[in-house]
């Protein structure tokens, strides 16, 4: 090491090092590496750039690189597809930037009681939204939570097949292809006019070896799946489990899946007050009824409220650690670990701010904004919207097929005018032709949607 101490490292001050080495009884730190064979030792310096030891240089360089980005608040963005740039309330930002939450980790409830209480409150508030008594601690994201829920169904039923709608999030299909090899994943065709699950096809596929059936509500493509009661009945009649994937921010308007027969609910709380973070703001959950078999098959961390031994207060503890990959090790069929807890705390704060009236107003306002977007874009010659579905609550498929332009070309023209158009679906869902998924948040007013419509009219002229 060089002579000067490093500001991040207290014991890099030369005097103290000498004192500590003397106490240990060795001449140099080198002696403490005796167990690392010489053949493995690196005897040259790492090939790294000279250090930026001062904050000015660091902020200039790294901050300067970030400055080149254009964020969703600078452009007018209609991107969604599972991640939305809604408003993050000031109180949420204050709480998630608290050093106590940012820098804590594996400490137990005796030191980190507040962290565990916030996570229990996340579980509780999501439980109210989805209508389930058990909710996991925050998991990686809604995609992985959905896949894990479907594999839970295979273990709970001892059956191999899981049925996934054609219109489900393409990332879910991709993730299942990598993750769910233990199961037989089969695609349930959609009625390509309405977008709804093709019930006749589902009836043919259903059988005594089906473990679980996935329904997204609302669907990835934004429409409300209207066949939920029929799918639920058919699934349960076959002895299989209904797994429902939700956008929890719509559950002030849409029924709680627990109230219409869902056996397992998975979802992503990112739309509940978490920054989009280029996809790093996702935070999943897995919910189900309070049943010991389900608890055993839930691969996630589960935080339980527990009383103090004297019964005078409530604390928290890990439940069923024995069912997680920490204890199962080589017998695990799924895994958990460091995931996205801080965003679970954000969602708990957000739902506490919103309250029952706010969550309803949020959903209603999203549905109204989506309808207005449909109305304005639908009036533009060549655009077909909604491409499918009747009720929409946040997102909608806009078909540009009649305009003679590709989505890529339209989006490039929008970008030049400061607008991020909807996600291009042509690669993932080629049967939709030149279609894009447009999304709104509560930050979109009439003026913003009018600007999109006017700009599209200009671009397509």
């Amino acid at each position, binding site marked *: 090491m060089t002579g000067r101490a490093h500001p991040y490292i207290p014991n890099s001050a030369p005097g103290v090092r000498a004192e500590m080495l003397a106490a240990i009884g060795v001449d140099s730190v080198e002696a403490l590496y005796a167990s690392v064979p010489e053949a493995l030792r690196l005897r040259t310096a790492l090939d790294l750039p000279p250090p930026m030891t001062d904050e000015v240089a660091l902020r200039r360089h790294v901050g300067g690189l970030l400055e080149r980005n254009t964020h969703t608040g600078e452009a007018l963005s209609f991107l969604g597809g599972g991640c939305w740039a809604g408003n993050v309330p000031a109180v949420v930002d204050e709480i998630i930037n608290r050093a106590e939450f940012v820098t804590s980790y594996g400490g137990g409830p005796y030191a980190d009681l507040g962290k565990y209480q916030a996570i229990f409150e996340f579980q509780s508030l999501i439980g109210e939204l989805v209508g389930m008594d058990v909710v996991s601690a925050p998991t990686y994201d809604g995609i992985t939570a959905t896949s894990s829920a479907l594999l839970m169904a295979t273990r709970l039923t001892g059956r191999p097949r899981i049925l996934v709608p054609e219109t489900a999030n393409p990332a879910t299909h991709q993730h299942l*292809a990598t993750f769910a090899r233990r199961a037989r994943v089969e695609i349930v065709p959609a009625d390509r006019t309405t977008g709804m699950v093709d019930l006749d096809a589902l009836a043919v596929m259903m059988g005594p070896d089906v473990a679980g059936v996935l329904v997204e509500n609302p669907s990835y493509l934004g429409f409300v799946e209207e066949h939920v009661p029929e799918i639920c009945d058919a699934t349960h009649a076959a002895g299989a489990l209904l797994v429902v994937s939700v956008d929890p921010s719509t559950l002030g308007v849409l029924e709680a899946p627990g109230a219409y027969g869902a056996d397992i609910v998975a979802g992503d709380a990112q739309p509940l007050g978490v920054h989009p973070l280029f996809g790093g703001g996702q935070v999943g959950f897995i919910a189900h009824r309070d049943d010991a078999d389900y608890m055993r098959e839930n691969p996630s961390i589960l935080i339980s409220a527990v009383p103090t031994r004297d019964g005078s207060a409530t604390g928290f503890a890990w439940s069923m650690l024995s069912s997680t990959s920490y204890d199962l090790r080589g017998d695990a069929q799924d895994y958990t670990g460091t995931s996205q807890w801080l965003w679970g705390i954000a969602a708990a704060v957000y739902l*506490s701010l919103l309250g029952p009236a706010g969550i309803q107003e949020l959903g209603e306002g999203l549905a109204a904004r989506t309808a207005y977007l449909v109305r304005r874009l639908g009036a533009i010659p060549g655009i077909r919207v909604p491409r499918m579905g009747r009720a929409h609550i946040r997102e909608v498929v806009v078909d540009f097929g009649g305009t003679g332009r590709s989505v890529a070309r339209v989006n490039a023209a929008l970008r030049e005018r400061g607008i991020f158009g909807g996600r291009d679906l042509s690669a993932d869902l080629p049967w939709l032709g030149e279609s894009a998924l447009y999304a709104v948040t509560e930050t979109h007013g009439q003026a913003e949607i009018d600007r999109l419509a006017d700009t599209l009219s200009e671009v397509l002229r």
Partner: protein
Amino acid sequence: MTPTGAPGREPAGRHYQGVRWNEPLVTELGTPGQRGLILPPLDPEVAAGQDAALAAIPAALRRAVAPRLPELAQPLVLRHFLRLSQMSQGAHLVADTLGTCTMKYSPLVGELIARSPKLLDLHPDQDPESVQGLLEISWRCEQLLKAVSGFGAFSFQGGGGSQGIYTSALIIRAWHEARGEGHRRDEIITTTFSHPANAAGAATAGFRVISLMPGERGFPDVDALRAAISPRTAGLMLTNPEDTGIFNPHVGEFVRLVHEAGGLCAYDQANGNPLLGIARAADAGFDLGQFNLHKTFGAPHNSVGPGASAVGVRADLAPFLPSPVVRFAGDGYILDRDRPQSVGRVRAWAGNFQVVVRAYAWLLALGADGLRTVAETAVLNNNYLVHLLAQVPGLTMPYEGSGPRLDQVRWSWAQLTAETGVTTDDIVRRTTDYGLQPYYTSHHPMLVPEPMTLEPTEMVSKDDLDELAAILAAIADEARTAPAEVRSAPHRGPVAILDEEAADDPARWAMTWRALVRKRAGAAVRG
């Protein structure tokens, strides 16, 4: 107050008193009609379409009963969660030495940078042209990690260590499948002292797992590995140093034997902190491996994530990395999705880039000399702590003859337990009363009886270590002189001793407020 010198500070002299708010659950708070947030109002023309939009939703799918969320004014929500934050510690407040977790200082300049809206408010589907700055940071961070590890390419998709280790298992699977050997290479070898995610990640990827038990010196010997290797061997996945802080000196031979048998070797570098600039994974022959950017590379742990796992591979294995990856395409940076040999997707989107940005800033701030100082200071601190704790009666260091430890030690209080009946679980609760973050005991299985795993990283000072050792010595003394005080601890933390068994009892566990209310009501009726 009179200034006093730091030396001679007694553990009890701190008179620590934790915050205990007895704060109700948020669901127990509130007053009907209160609210914490007003959403942007609907403009008239937008509002005009609302009823029709909602009427289109089938009645059976319309919410019938409003969710029972709390009704709280904004200052009350803020107050509640600030109190919860006060009842949490975090590595900025304490000299956290939580074993296996590499708790270190997360520089605040990195926080300042990472809290820019130019990062927070980026959508993952934005055109790459609009996120060139972020993609360049990711690419540059990858170049630095290539120098640190010797690997040829990295993916940052994994959101934590377990997800990264699982990704390593997927890459091993995909590599054998690409060579037409996937069907017969179905076993992964790991060690019992490696992090459980190595076994679990391999098992989740479909492998049968063989765990090698440690020998007398704390690590499995070469013969144990030889016995486990077979034509079914797909690879080796291990941590080194293991969670004991013991470096397996035969690791080069392990790698050679597994390669000879046709397997790949994956290095879980969750414990990589003491080896920065000292030894590189690729130089030891490993084909792939992962670092935890939220541990070793200075990014904070965020209350159990978001973290980021950097999975590195030999250059020829790069095509197998998860999709998408950040690539420099000559005139700019792209998210490359055209990767036919990729293992596919391990999570939504492309990764936790806020963590990558912080790690990049940390790496730049340290440089080559700084990284080596990090490693050497962590090892120095650990061995200084060994020196101090060797003097605590009742505390032993299993596998003592295995040479100096690197980053951590899995200690044993078994002697003290035999003598006094006070267990490691009692002691860990008691540490709370002195303002310490409770130490980590051990992952499953608990091969070391009454374990205590301490990992003092480069973040802690000599005074911190002196104080930690004095507190542990004081508690050991209490175990002999006032055992009831230790067994009934904590007394000065945010909550009293808990009935933790309730969390595993189906009749009493409660993962949500609604379940808690139901079970409390049931208990009241019964009782």
